[in-house]
């Protein structure tokens, strides 16, 4: 009753407006892009660079005449590292601002909060963070790397370089749990062994006893899937105990929060990481991007992180799809994206993989060196094999869940 009445009022108002100003006036409104990132609270180390890049991407788009001749406007929400606000703001973005797309969510927890809300209110969703993989939802696109794209490459590389025995320390949440299982899988497949896997909640700062346990286990190298500000203490305490020199380390989380800048070079030099994007990636798109970006945000901008580039590429993929669809309408844009849209991004070629809604992209192994990353080896066009094993949205477009990938 109340619903129909409200709709009636709205329709009446819209009709009146259309009559007064002419219907086309509405088509000229800006296209709204919602941003749901933590700009305060513990996760802002990740959120801020992402919003910076999103702001930049939108400014660029507008400078180039906008999309479909319409300006793009950023509606920026600070979710304050608070799950309740993720729900509230996802609702607001979908219902009040009626944005064309939402970019955002950092932790898997926040994504799983946003995802059902945006599904329910039929608003397109881009999740631009590297994560544990397995999300299968036609309304969502994932532009970050998953373990099959990075862990699969880095484990054998590190084993070849250092030896077969690995000790895993991981953040105690979805990503850490699942990533460490992937490490174990790839280590055993390559004839190595995992000495132990230790999990740490994200607020742990005292790693003394873990460090001595690692010393007792004498692994050839340590795999870190530690995350967040508190876990930086691990690297500090590790180096303070004189271990940085004797046992090397590999990671698919280090650097995402600019750890290589926070720590001193002698605390983390030589560490191996594997991501889609490094500032040092050599291609014309990246050179041009960095030049423009530094002009806007200053040459002393610390570092364009993996997550920030994921966000930039997510926006570009969406923008291309809008152009291709000739509309910002959700279903039309999804259709366009599902044609396997592809862009020449700063990280290299990035293509939407239609069955999984994840990305086919380049990954690189790099070494930490004096607050920067030295690229060591490139792996072009990696497929999201893990998610592909469980998810096929071409066959089951109505599938909607996060799979836990069994192997």
């Amino acid at each position, binding site marked *: 009753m109340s619903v129909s009445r409200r709709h009636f009022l709205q329709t009446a108002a819209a009709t009146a407006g259309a009559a007064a100003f002419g219907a086309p006036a509405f088509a000229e409104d800006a296209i709204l892009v919602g941003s749901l990132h933590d700009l305060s609270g*513990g996760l802002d180390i990740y959120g801020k660079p992402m919003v910076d890049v999103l702001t930049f991407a939108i400014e660029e788009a507008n400078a180039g005449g906008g999309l479909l001749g319409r300006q793009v406007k950023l509606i920026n929400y600070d979710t304050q590292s608070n799950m309740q606000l993720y729900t509230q703001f996802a609702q607001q973005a979908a219902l009040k601002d009626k944005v064309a797309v939402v970019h955002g969510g950092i932790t898997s927890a926040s994504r799983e909060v946003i995802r059902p809300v945006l599904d329910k209110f039929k608003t397109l969703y881009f999740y631009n963070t590297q994560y544990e993989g397995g999300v299968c939802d036609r309304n969502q696109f994932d532009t970050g790397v998953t373990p099959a794209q990075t862990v699969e490459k880095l484990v054998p590389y590190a084993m070849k370089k250092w030896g077969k025995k690995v000790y895993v320390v991981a953040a105690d949440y979805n990503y850490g749990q699942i990533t460490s299982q992937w490490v174990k899988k790839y280590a055993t497949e390559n004839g190595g062994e995992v000495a132990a896997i230790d999990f740490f909640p994200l607020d742990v700062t*005292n790693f*003394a006893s873990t460090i001595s346990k690692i010393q007792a286990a004498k692994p050839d190298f340590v795999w870190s899937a530690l995350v967040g500000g508190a876990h930086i203490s691990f690297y500090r305490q590790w180096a303070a105990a004189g271990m940085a020199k004797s046992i090397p380390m590999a990671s698919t989380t280090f650097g995402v929060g600019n750890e290589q800048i926070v720590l001193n070079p002698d605390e983390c030099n030589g560490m191996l990481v594997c991501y889609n994007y490094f500032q040092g990636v050599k291609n014309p798109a990246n050179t041009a991007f960095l030049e423009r970006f530094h002009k806007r945000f200053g040459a002393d901008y610390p570092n364009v992180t993996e997550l920030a580039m994921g966000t930039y590429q997510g926006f570009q993929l969406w923008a291309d799809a809008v152009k291709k669809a000739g509309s910002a309408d959700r279903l039309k844009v999804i259709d366009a994206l599902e044609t396997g849209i592809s862009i020449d991004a700063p990280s290299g070629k990035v293509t939407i993989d239609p069955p999984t809604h994840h990305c086919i992209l380049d990954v690189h192994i790099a070494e930490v060196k004096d607050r920067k990353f030295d690229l060591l080896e490139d792996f072009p066009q990696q497929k999201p094999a893990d998610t592909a094993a469980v998810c096929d949205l071409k066959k089951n477009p109505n599938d909607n869940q996060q799979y836990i990938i069994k192997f």
Partner: protein
Amino acid sequence: MDLVALLAIQVLYAIASLALISVGLAIIFGMMKVINLAHGEFLMLGGYAAIEANRYGINIWIAMLVVAPLVVGAIGAIVERTIIRWLYGRMIDTMLATWGLSLFLVGLTTAVFGNTTVGLSAPLGSFEIGSYRVSAYTLFVIAVAFVTLGGVLAMLRFTRLGLVARGAMQNANMAAALGVNPNRVYSVTFAAGAALTGLAGGVLAPVSGVFPTIGVAYVAKSFITVIGGGAAIVTGTATASALFGAVNQLATYATTPVFGEVALLAAAIVLIRLLPQGITGRFFRRSL
């Protein structure tokens, strides 16, 4: 044998760091009955003070041991003047105000320093115990904790300032009768508590990361330690830290850090149940 020595150092370190982060709060809460929820942010500011000072070329030891306490002490004095001064005797209101202050300081720090701050790495290198390597800085932190507690004790017991402070806390009129302005005493005490907290923040900066929201990790633990210790500032902090630190580290070693944390908290509950006035409410009653 190596393991025993290693474990002993780790337990001592856990105790020392707990005592360090708590003693400033113990002074502020114990002597002034102000529940300072911004305590964690005072620690955080101590860390930033040390880092920034070091960045501008000040020797790391001076940055940690002198600059950090001075800066945070000064901030404490300002906070006391502008906020706490109006709230004495209103314990609950100080809680709300300092919670606000905590948010404010986190926001301010983020705005000023951004959230990618180059940290300090621990000086002093490492040494070997059998097949284990331990950071020498660990021993330094233990030493600082001892010296700090000893210093506070000596201050309270032997100096006129300490005497006056104790007097004023027990009875403001008495201090007034001694010709001391109780407001002055409160100011100085609050600033002193803040300075010690800043010292702890500076000294711990190379061990744990420094970022705007690090305070949350400390505030509950310090508060539990102070309450567990009871009325006597130094003895209380020392005994409660000894108990909780040992429980925490041993449980962590035997199981996981989470379990260590839970064991600490559980120990606190049992302690308060057995000694509803804290340790020094029952034992060491006449201590300071």
